[in-house]
């Protein structure tokens, strides 16, 4: 019988610890499939963050390093400078990347470090129990914004990809979502482009993936996907923000 579907070699057999309906799992699979399809699994060195995906080093079937909170881009820089011929990536949440790790993400882009970052934006701190992130939407409730985020108190949510797209060294910047099958397919294409950009030596590449956190959003997985579509995508528009081709 013909094989219709097979789990990617890019993931280990370890069962993930993610909550039911959490889209971290989909994003892991997309990254792993891309690494396998590009034939670079054996050349890949990944960096896991501090956040719900802290155990990513147990799930990706390639060499991995576990970074401290927010510092994955610096760790990846150290790896890439030692092994410029290897494929180096970070996988980071929005607390990790957009809050504590802002300096590291800005400067990895600024140097045009030839690594790829998968930035999982779920508009909240998942692992620590639903505190407000810089990406939390106005009116969205969080355990440290019990009445909902307000502009007066916390400012407007940070659009990291738009900010990074202004930096010359950021060769490929795209925001995607994993709320529908069509968007999942587009997300995979973007992730592949980002790794290809690294393989071509063009510079830093980052894919922001809009993701759900049903647990801390207090929703069913289905409602969470709808909430993402109705609330996150309007503020964080999906699409490409920068490709190497448009460079002069």
């Amino acid at each position, binding site marked *: 019988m013909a094989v219709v579907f097979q789990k990617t070699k890019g993931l*280990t057999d370890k069962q993930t610890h993610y909550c039911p309906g959490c889209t971290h799992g989909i994003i892991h699979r997309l990254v792993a499939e891309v690494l396998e399809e590009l034939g670079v*699994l*054996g*050349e*890949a*060195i990944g*960096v896991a963050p501090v956040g719900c995906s*802290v*155990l990513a*080093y*147990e799930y*990706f*079937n*390639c*060499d*991995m*390093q*576990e*970074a*401290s909170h927010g*510092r994955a881009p*610096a*760790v*990846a*820089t*150290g*790896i*890439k*400078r*030692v*092994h410029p011929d*290897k*494929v180096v990536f970070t996988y980071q949440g929005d607390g990790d990347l957009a809050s504590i790790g802002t*300096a*590291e993400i*800005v*400067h990895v882009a*600024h140097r045009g470090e030839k690594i790829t970052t998968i930035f999982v934006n779920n508009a909240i701190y998942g692992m620590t129990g639903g505190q407000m992130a810089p990406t939390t939407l106005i009116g969205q409730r969080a355990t440290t914004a019990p009445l909902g985020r307000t502009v007066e108190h916390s400012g407007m949510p940070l659009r990291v990809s738009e900010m990074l797209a202004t930096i010359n060294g950021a060769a490929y910047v795209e925001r995607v979502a994993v709320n529908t099958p069509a968007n999942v397919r587009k997300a995979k294409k973007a992730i592949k482009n980002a790794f290809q950009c690294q393989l071509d030596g063009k510079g830093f590449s980052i894919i922001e993936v809009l993701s759900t956190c049903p647990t801390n959003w207090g929703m069913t997985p289905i409602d969470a996907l709808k909430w993402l579509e109705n609330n996150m995508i309007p503020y964080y528009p999906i699409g490409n923000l920068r490709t190497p081709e448009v460079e002069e």
Partner: protein
Amino acid sequence: MAKILMKGNEAIGAAAIKAGCKYFFGYPITPQNELPEYMSRELPKAGGVFLQAESEVAAINMVYGASGAGARVMTSSSSPGIALKQEGITYIAGAELPCVIVNIVRGGPGLGGIQPAQSDYNQVTRGGGNGDYKLLVYAPANLQEMVDLMQEAFDAADYYRTPVMMVGDGMIGQIMEPVEFKESVSRFELPEKDWATVGTGNKRKPNIANSLFLDPAELEKHNVKLQEKYATIKANEARYETYNLENAQLVAVAYGTTSRILRNAINELKEKGIEVGMIRPITLWPFPEEAFDQIPASCKGLLSVEMSMGQMVDDLKIVSNGRWPVYFYGRSGGMIPTPAGIIGKIEELIGGAK
């Protein structure tokens, strides 16, 4: 090789490159700037990479990444910058990665000053980061010793898979002295870094650099393993020098450049017929406890001489364990102890002991 006159910070860089250091990540801070400047010029010639990071935090995490990827790697800074690196240092210790960290100490607390000090003793020996970890800490007294110890520092880091710190007060960084780069044979048999993350090549199971152990039993097991390693380091790596211990009425303890001032004071006192011995720790951790077993019965007390308000003095009390009274003399903030100041203190103590 012939002796060449070099500035301390540059000699550190030259010694590191000679010891096989290929990667350097750092951030500017006085009084160690000549070291990264030297590395930016010389490392590429040696086939290595120098990178100025956006902060000390980033620099130490680049060291983590490079070390985890199997490289001989170094960073340097001065006190406030070393304070910032502490999180990265405990992660490196926890993940059992080798590296050398140079701290050219300046006065604190806070922004402090830019003149020589030894006020980071507690930070380097007690661990400024979280958790049960130790650094192997060398504190050379002159440039030749610093140069000689550099190979040892990198080898020990690789052998024990642990971060090693080279501590110099600001004087070691700024002073110019003749140094000779000797050919040395490593004391250690260094195994292949088969744990490094270099890509599996689809030939083996993934390697992982990590300090996270969510299962308490696993974390305790990891800690027990680390402690066994530290016990081995303690047994094998403590280094010290003794001077004029015979018939000493008092034994003074000092490290780094302070020991050079103390030595002058001891020589002057000898001419006056007062016998004072010296123990000079070359490693601050492990603290050279064994040296204190050589102290003669004539000794009536220990004196800690420091460029701080009194930090190593606590280790003297621990090692004395009631055998001798422990006294302290120190200057701080970039003020350097003088032989006259030390002599005054010793005469006061010995006079009082009469």
